[in-house]
């Protein structure tokens, strides 16, 4: 049997889109492959985006950095070229916004996005900040709620050819009054969830990996992840106070 080639995971512009720990998504993907006996490597991209990677991961960032990141990713063949080749993309927050048709920049003007996703982003009046629970609308993720933390000033409206990733149960999500969170188009997934999102949602991580390797993957149990999900998804209640008499 021929050796599988290493899965190449591109961490795109973490120097610009890296303010929120989202490069952890690339780490999670790599480890979940390695723990299944497959080789995987992370390629850190800080210039033009190469087309030869299997998965591209974009994170969140500040407004001025986002504009620069969009310019970088637009350099041909760039991210568009990779998507046309069938690559898998995970884009979080600012990363999601730059993949759309246009997004609001720090100067109040609109900037052109990469046009990979049918969506536009404008400025919200109030920042959306807090824990999110959402029910996936993607059949492969049915039954596993998405959890994450959102922190964004953008409101993203999906166009007719973009499907939402999930329905918001608590939190804001895309923020246009549609009650939706994130977007899915082909093998491109966008979300406003940090955490990082793949650390909190292993089913989503494995879906992206299965798209990338082209076959189902054996199940993987990471007990710490199960314990974290249990905490994040349990209904809120007051935590017991630390016993102050303990020296």
């Amino acid at each position, binding site marked *: 049997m021929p050796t599988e080639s290493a899965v190449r995971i591109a961490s795109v512009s973490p120097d610009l889109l890296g303010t929120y720990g989202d490069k952890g998504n690339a780490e999670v993907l790599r480890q979940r492959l390695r723990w299944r006996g497959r080789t995987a490597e992370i390629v850190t991209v800080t210039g033009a985006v190469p087309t030869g990677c299997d998965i591209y991961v974009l994170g969140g960032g*500040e407004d001025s950095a986002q504009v620069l990141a969009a310019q970088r990713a637009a350099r041909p063949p760039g991210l568009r070229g990779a998507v046309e080749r069938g690559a898998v993309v995970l884009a979080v927050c600012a990363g999601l916004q730059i993949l759309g048709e246009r997004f609001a920049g720090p100067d109040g003007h609109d900037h052109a996005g990469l046009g990979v996703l049918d969506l536009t982003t404008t400025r919200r009046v109030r920042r959306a900040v807090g824990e999110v629970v959402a029910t996936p609308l993607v059949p492969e993720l049915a039954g596993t709620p998405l959890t994450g933390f959102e922190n964004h000033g953008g409101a993203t409206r999906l166009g007719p050819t973009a499907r939402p990733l999930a329905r918001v149960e608590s939190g804001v999500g895309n923020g246009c009054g549609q009650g939706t969170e994130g977007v899915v188009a082909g093998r491109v997934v966008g979300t406003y969830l940090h955490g990082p999102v793949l650390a909190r949602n292993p089913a989503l991580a494995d879906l992206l990996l299965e798209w990338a390797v082209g076959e189902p993957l054996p199940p993987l149990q990471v007990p710490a992840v199960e314990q974290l999900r249990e905490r994040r998804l349990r209904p809120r209640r007051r935590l017991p106070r630390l016993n102050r008499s303990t020296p």
Partner: protein
Amino acid sequence: MGRPGGVLGGRVALALDPGLLAELATSRPVALVSGTNGKSTTTAMLAAAVAVRSRPAWNRTGANMADGALAALLDHPDADSAVLEIDEGYLPGVIAQTRPAYVVLLNMSRDQLDRVGEVHSVVRRIRTALAASPRTTVIANAGDPLVVAAAQAAEHRIWVAPPRTWRHDGVTCLLCGGHIDPVATTWGCAECALREPSATWTVTEDGQLLGPDGYRRTLELRLPGAANLVNASFAVAAATAYGVAPDRAVDAVAGLDEIAGRYRSFPRPDGETRLLLAKNPAGWSETLAVIEASPSAVVIAVNSREADGRDPSWLWDVPFERLRGRRVMASGDRAADLAVRLAYAEVDHEVEPDPVMAARMLGGRVDVAADYTAFLGVRARLARAAAEDRTSPRADGTG
């Protein structure tokens, strides 16, 4: 908060008389210390150095917003100078009110995104405030492009250069939006004229401090880590500007062995617990370096209360992989999130949300590295236990 004055007193006083801060500041030379990391330490160091020739008021509890500054001044009516740690967000207002003789700008990087506004807008406001305060001398970090952009607006500038090996992460230029790459030589914006200024004071990784007029001294501090060498250099540079002889400033700084509980060691019957604080990824990298220099077991305690930043995604910007091979406990309110981080980092660990319990379970020499509210909690409990031990040692030797 039970002390007379204190933050509550400051807040009440400001509500009654908003000009009070300005009034109290006019009679004393004021030095403000700000930046993302190192404020409390540098303030304590500068206060110690300035104390060589005056009686400074300083906000040693670390209450660093406007009311904390005022409280420090109210609490020390006989002080003839002031050294005040000020949060970056509040710095412009406090500059306007106190017309300080000195402002120390240590560094500007991201703190917790959901607590403070975006870094650029904070730095822009500081720049504006400095432009409007022509009598202020800024002692500023030549290696940090955001600090330089702010400090250049001041009339009088003293530049301090950290070690060459310390590179910023790569930033967007404050002035023109161009990208400034992290480089091993002097940095410069690719799009505009902003570039690294030549420095009056320089410090190397191993503590060689070089100053004006050929001044040269090896810093030997009791506080660990390279970041404290840099903090000390800022304190000495500012104290020298204030009129303290540099050698005396260095001696005063070198005598400090803890800063408000940071680096403080608490003895246990079977070892000791050393407390370390880290509030953001840059601070955590430095804390990991301090831990690596000793053979201790490690408790990492992470909370996510308002003051810590409500979401611990930043855990993935910290190279916890460096803890592999050590005995580690994941602790704090967000122990479960930390455990996932450590699992993916392949760092063996156990989970115990109570950090004091976790340290006891490890035994021997233990470093407890905690974020802000976790640190305050552990410090309070260990300090209280230490005080109780002093007054009534237990018959069975436990505690």
